[in-house]
C-alpha cells in the first residue's frame, strides 16, 4: 500500500465542504445578537474538505495504527484484552446515546438501572459495600479514593493525617494522585521481589499516616502474601488501605480486594472489564469503598427506592463532585455488557487463565531473558532484559525489534526496580498459538542479539517510520499545523 502522510489541513481547498445542515427557517432573529466587540476577529484556518476526503484521510490514518484487533499487545499493566464487538454495538443504542444527563430521572430509568446494576456487580466482584462510577479513569479513581480517605479522617477530627505510604514499585500515578489530593508521599522500599517489607513499613506507621496505597499483585506481578498482616498493622495505626485496581484482572475468580482488608479501591473498566483503551481514553475508574466510607463517595449517587424506582441523590457528607455528570456512561455500558456476557461462571475463568498465560510465557522465555524473581507470577511478570547482555542489546532494542515482527512491545523501563525492565502481560483472551508465536519471536530476537547485535540495535527496520528524533521534538516543540508550516 502507498505510504500516506498528509495532514487534513493539507487537503484543504477553499470553498469545499463536508457537511449539510438543516435549512434556516428563522428570519434573522439572532442577527446582531452579539455586539461586535464580543465577536471573533482573527482568522480561523480550519480544513475545507469534502466528506470523502475526511473518510479516506482517517481511514488511511487508521492503517498506520496497531491495536488489539491488529495483533498481540502484551503491554504490561495495561491489560490489553480483546474488546468484544457486541459491547460497541449496544453502547451506541439511540435510547442511551440521545439521553440528556439532566433529564428527569423518571425519563431515564433504564440508564439509571444500568448504572445501579453495574455498581452492584462491581461491589460484588470486588467485595466492597458500594461503588461510584463517576470517576473517568484509573488516575481519576485514585484521586477520588484518596479524597474519600481524607474525608474520613477529617470527619473524625483527625487532621494530622496528611501522609500516604506508597511503595517505590508503585505506578507513577499513585504518588502523583497523592500530590493532587494534598497528601505527602512517604515511600516504602520494596524487597528484591517487589513486595513490601513489613519491617520497613512498621516504623513508618504513626498518627500522621492517612493510609497506604498498594497494588496486589504488585507491579512485578507478585502477590503480596503478607497482605493480611499489613492490613492489620495499617488499621491498628489508624490508617486506611487503598487498592490500586490496575492489577485486578488476575484476581477475578480468586480473590476479592475487599476481603484482603482494603477499604477503598478503584477499578479500571478499560483493563479488567474489556472496554477499549481508545488510544488512551475514554476510560472509566469506578471507586468502591467499605461500608463506613460510603457516605463520602462523590456526588451524584444513583439510588433505588422501595418501589424499585431509581433516583439521583446528592449527599451532604459526600467529598464533593469529581465529574460534571455521571462519569463516562458510554464506557460503563460496555463493561456491563462484558460482565453479562461472561456471567458468574465465565468471570471466574478470567483470573486463572490470565495467570496461566503469563506463567507460560515466563517459563518459556527465562532461558534467554533474565528473570529476577522466581515463583508463580499472576497476570504479568518482569524480565530484567536479556540474560546475555554482552553484546549491548538493550530492552529498548528488543522492544523495537518486536515491532518488526508484528507484535506490540511490552511495557519497558517500568517498574523502576530494575535497569532493563520488560513487563509482559498477555491477558486471558490470547490463545496458546499466539503465545507460542510470541515466544518463538522472543527467542529469535535473543539469538539475533547474540549473532547480529547491530541489526537489533538498529531496529525497527520495517515499520513505516523508524527511530524518531524525540530530542529535537522536545527541545523545539512543534505542536500544531501553523507552527509546522512556519518551521
Amino acid at each position, binding site marked *: 500500500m502507498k505510504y500516506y502522510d498528509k495532514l487534513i489541513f493539507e487537503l484543504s481547498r477553499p470553498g469545499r465542504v463536508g457537511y449539510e445542515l438543516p435549512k434556516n427557517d428563522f428570519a434573522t432573529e439572532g442577527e446582531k445578537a452579539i*455586539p461586535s466587540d464580543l465577536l471573533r476577529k482573527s482568522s480561523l484556518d480550519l480544513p475545507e474538505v469534502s466528506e470523502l476526503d475526511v473518510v479516506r484521510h482517517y481511514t488511511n490514518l487508521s492503517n498506520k495504527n496497531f491495536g488489539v484487533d491488529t495483533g498481540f499487545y502484551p503491554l504490561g499493566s495495561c491489560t490489553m484484552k480483546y474488546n468484544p464487538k457486541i459491547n460497541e454495538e449496544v453502547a451506541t443504542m439511540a435510547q442511551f446515546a440521545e439521553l*440528556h444527563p439532566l433529564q428527569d430521572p423518571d425519563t431515564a430509568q433504564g*440508564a439509571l438501572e444500568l448504572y445501579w446494576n453495574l455498581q452492584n456487580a462491581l461491589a460484588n466482584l470486588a467485595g466492597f459495600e458500594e461503588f461510584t462510577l463517576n470517576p473517568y479513569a484509573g488516575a481519576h479513581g485514585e484521586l477520588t479514593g484518596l479524597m474519600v480517605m481524607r474525608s474520613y479522617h477529617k470527619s473524625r477530627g483527625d487532621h494530622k493525617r496528611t501522609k500516604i505510604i506508597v511503595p517505590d514499585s508503585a505506578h507513577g500515578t499513585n504518588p502523583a494522585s497523592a500530590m493532587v489530593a494534598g497528601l505527602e508521599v512517604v515511600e516504602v522500599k520494596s524487597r528484591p521481589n517487589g513486595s513490601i517489607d513489613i519491617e520497613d513499613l512498621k516504623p513508618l506507621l504513626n498518627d500522621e499516616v492517612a493510609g497506604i496505597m498498594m497494588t496486589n499483585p504488585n507491579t512485578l506481578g507478585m502477590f503480596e502474601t503478607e497482605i493480611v498482616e499489613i492490613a492489620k498493622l495499617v488499621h491498628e495505626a489508624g490508617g486506611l488501605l487503598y487498592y490500586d485496581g490496575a492489577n485486578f484482572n488476575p484476581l477475578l475468580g480468586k*480473590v476479592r480486594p475487599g476481603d484482603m482488608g482494603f477499604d477503598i479501591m478503584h477499578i479500571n473498566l478499560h483493563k479488567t472489564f474489556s472496554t477499549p483503551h481508545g488510544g488512551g481514553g475514554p476510560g472509566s475508574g469506578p471507586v468502591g469503598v467499605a461500608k463506613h466510607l460510603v457516605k463520602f463517595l462523590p456526588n451524584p449517587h444513583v439510588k433505588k427506592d422501595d418501589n424499585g424506582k431509581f433516583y439521583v441523590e446528592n449527599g451532604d457528607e459526600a467529598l464533593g463532585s469529581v465529574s460534571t455528570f455521571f462519569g463516562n456512561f458510554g464506557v460503563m455500558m460496555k463493561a456491563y455488557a462484558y460482565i453479562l456476557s461472561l456471567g458468574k461462571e465465565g468471570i471466574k475463568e478470567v483470573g486463572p487463565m490470565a495467570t496461566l498465560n503469563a506463567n507460560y510465557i515466563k517459563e518459556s522465555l527465562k532461558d534467554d531473558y533474565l528473570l529476577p524473581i522466581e515463583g508463580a507470577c499472576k497476570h504479568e511478570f518482569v524480565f530484567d532484559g536479556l540474560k546475555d547482555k554482552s553484546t549491548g542489546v538493550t530492552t529498548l532494542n528488543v522492544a523495537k525489534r518486536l515491532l518488526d515482527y508484528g507484535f506490540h*512491545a511490552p511495557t519497558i523501563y517500568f517498574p523502576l526496580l530494575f535497569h532493563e525492565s520488560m513487563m509482559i502481560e498477555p491477558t486471558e483472551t490470547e490463545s496458546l498459538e499466539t503465545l507460542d508465536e510470541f515466544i518463538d519471536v522472543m527467542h529469535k530476537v535473543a539469538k539475533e542479539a547474540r549473532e547480529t547485535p547491530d541489526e537489533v540495535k538498529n531496529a525497527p527496520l520495517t515499520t513505516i517510520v523508524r527511530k524518531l528524533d524525540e530530542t529535537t521534538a522536545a527541545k523545539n516543540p512543534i505542536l500544531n499545523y501553523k507552527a509546522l508550516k512556519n518551521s
Partner: protein
Amino acid sequence: MNRYIPHTEEDIKVMLEKIGVNSTDDLFSDIPEEVIFKGEYDIPSAMSEVELRKHFQELGDKNTRLKVFAGGGAYDHYSPSVIGHLLSRSEFYTAYTPYQPEISQGTLQYIFEYQSMICELTGLEASNASMYDGATATAEAAMMMVASAKKKNRVAISATLAPRVVDVVKTYTKFHGVDLTVIPEKDGVTDLEALAEVLEGGDVAGVIVPCPNKYGIVEDFTGLAEKVHSVKALLAMNCDPSTLAVLRTPAEWGADIACGDGQTLGMPLQFGGPYLGFMACSKAQLRKMPGRVVGATKDADGKRAFVLTLQAREQHIRREKATSNICSNQSLMALYATVYVALMGKKGLEEVNKLSCDGAHYLYNKLLATGKFHKVFDKPFLKEFTVRTDLDVKKVNEYLASKGYMGGIDLGNGLVEFAVTEKRTKEEIDELVTLMLEA
C-alpha cells in the same frame, strides 16, 4: 470456556506441564487461604448475544427519547454520520496511548490535528491531547495557575461559571490546598469591581471566567486581562469550543489558558459521557500544562512523523513532583472532535452557531410574547438563555416530558434556562411553547 477465552483442555494441559504445576490453583498457592474467594458471584449467568441485545433493548425502552431544549453543559448538536463510522475503526479504538510511535502514527497524527484545531479555535499556541471533561479541565487549570505562580495560592473563580464546573473546581482545590474565592455575580455577569478588589489582595495566582456563562450570557471582559496580568496573575477562560468560531477568542481576550468541554463538537449526549475536556495555553505556560502533548519531528530517514513530547512534565517521570496526575486522556473523543471539525470547517461551525442563535432568539421572543415569561438580564446570548416565568416549572417540564420534549433547566426562583441547537426546527419550537402554555 466461553467466546472470549480460547483455552481448550488440551491447551491448559500443555501449559501447566511447561510451567511444572498440576493445576491453575497451584499458581495461586502463595495466596493466604483466608482471603481466597470460595463463594459464588452474585451476578447473572452468561448471556448470549441474543439475550444481551434483548436486555439492553428492555433497559433502553425504560428511557424516554426527548426533543431537547436544555443545555447546562450538554448540548444536542448534530453529529454527522461519518464520525461513527470512522470511530468504529478498531485500529483506533483498540490501541492504547501511543508509547511506540512507529506503530501509532495514526493516533499521534490525529492528536496533532486535534491540537491544531483547538489552537485555531482558541487562538492560543499549545493544546494538550485532551482531558476528561470540561469541569476537570477547569480544575486542572486552577492547579496549573497555582503551580505556575509558585508562591501565590489563591484562585478566583467567577460565580457565573456553570455550578457543576464550580463544584468540581471546589472539590479539587479543597483537597489540593488551593485557596478559592468565588467572585460574585451582578446582573447575570461577573462582578468585575469585586474581582478587582480580590486582585488587590496580592495573593491571586489566577482567575477563571466563563464564556458563555451559566445563564448563557456572553460576558464583556474588556480590560480584564490587563488587570489580572498587572498583579502577575494568569487568566483562564472556560469556553464552549463550538462557539469560538464566532465569539471573541480567549487569545483575543488576553487569556493565558482556555479550557472547557468539547462535547459541543458533535458528541452524543450519552447521559453525560464520555465527553472531552480540552485545554490550551500560551507558549509561556506550555511547560506547566498537564496531560499528553504530541509534537512533530522527523524519523531516521527524514520522514515527517509525530511523537509524544515534553514528557518530562508528566506523572510517570516526575511522580509526586508532577503538577497533575493525568495519565490517560480522552483520545478517542479527541478523534471525535477532530473528524467533526474537519467535516464542518469554518463555514459549518459558523452556520451551526447562526442556526442555533437564530432558533434561540426565535424561542426567546416567542416566550416573552406569551406574557408568561419575562426578561431577566438584558445581555447578549448565543444558543442558551435564561428567563423568568410565572409558570410552575416542575409541572411544565413533567407535562413536556409526557409529550416528548425536554424543557428548560429549572434554576429555581422562577428562573428557567433554555438551549436551542441547529437540530431544533421552527415547528418544534412552536409546539414547545404551545405545550408549555397548556400545562
